[in-house]
């Protein structure tokens, strides 16, 4: 938790006058152009990549651990919202390692039954899930 507080302080300091004036962020709160360091790949992500038939992180290369409202969170493009990192999760010090944590968390969230897309898909999806047949 101590590390989370540090992130919050860092964000407070990085808010510019222009951002205060208009009440919203300018740009991203993290380096979107940071390419992944494959030496830090987690075993879950390796398994996911193999399952999908890819040779690298593919779309997950664009996933980073962001910081919104002073809290660590990962943006989920499928629901256009931020997924908060559980408060009891110990975050590593390095951004590359944090990005790997964010990628793993996002995949696990998207694959869970609780993901908002499950309900949306059941309601509006053109192709019903196999279990619905």
């Amino acid at each position, binding site marked *: 938790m101590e590390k989370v507080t540090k992130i919050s302080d860092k964000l407070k300091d990085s808010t510019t006058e222009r951002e205060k004036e208009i009440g919203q962020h300018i740009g991203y709160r993290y380096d979107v152009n940071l390419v992944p360091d494959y030496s830090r790949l987690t075993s879950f992500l390796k398994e996911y990549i193999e399952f999908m038939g890819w040779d690298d992180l593919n779309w997950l290369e664009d996933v980073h651990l962001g910081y919104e*409202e002073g809290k660590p969170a990962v943006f989920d493009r499928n629901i256009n919202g931020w997924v908060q990192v559980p408060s009891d999760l110990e975050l590593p010090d390095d951004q590359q390692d944090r990005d790997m944590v964010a990628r793993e*968390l996002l995949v696990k969230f998207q694959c869970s039954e609780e993901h908002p897309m499950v309900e949306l898909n059941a309601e509006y999806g053109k*192709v019903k899930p196999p279990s619905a047949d």
Partner: protein
Amino acid sequence: MAELNSPGSMHQEKLAGRTQQIFFSAVESDRLAPPHAIDVDFDKCCEIDAENLRAREVNSKIAELMREGYGTITVLNPGAKHSLGVGILNRLNLNFEGSLGYFGCGLSDGPNIRVAGRVGWSCAENMMSGTIVIEKNAGSTFGAAIRGGDLVCKGDVGSRTGIDMKGGTIIVGGRTGAFSGFMMQRGRMIVLGDAGPNLGDSMYDGLIYVGGEIAGLGVDAIDAEMTDLECSWIERKLAMYGLEAPNGVANMRKIESGKQLWNYDSLEPTEKKLVL
């Protein structure tokens, strides 16, 4: 005229920047695919002969075969038909033994697609994830608005490659035309050959790497310094598709946004009209 934030007006919420963010609590699963994904087996293969089929029939046939569990599908005689292989939101190996017309493989989210021939305009538009490899040349607006995944053309591509791209990686083995990376917002583009005029015009973010000559940079596109991590990442990426930078990755030019065009305002266009 309706007053801003008054009952019944078009905006009930106060636009105060961060309050617009929606947060979700993470719930984890050990699954590797979303619940609505179709279970396919990469080792289960089949072929479709598209010669006498319309584009819609080919796409329906692909969907039908996926539901039967086929994970590797080969389409013979695609005949440059338009809109083939679109809207596949699942893992799948899909091969086209020929060329595609306009808007091929759009809206992809997961599949690995290989096109043995050429593709027309707007290939892989709005691609979300997966890999698409074109063995020959591609038309204009290649990878328009892609958000993720790898899009590879081993030959030359037309103009406005990666226009409005918001993520993912576009790799061009040959040359790319004018206005490539126009208004790109995120993602990476690797061009091994020459790039046409106005490269990266009005780009907001993202990176463009060029191995050949650049005819001219667009507005707010500037040179940047390559890092060791980026060099190793590019080498790894190119090796995946059997490509190589002609003069070495370290000698490629890196282009990024100068961020001089960044203008942000807290008001929506409709609110601006009310205020003005």
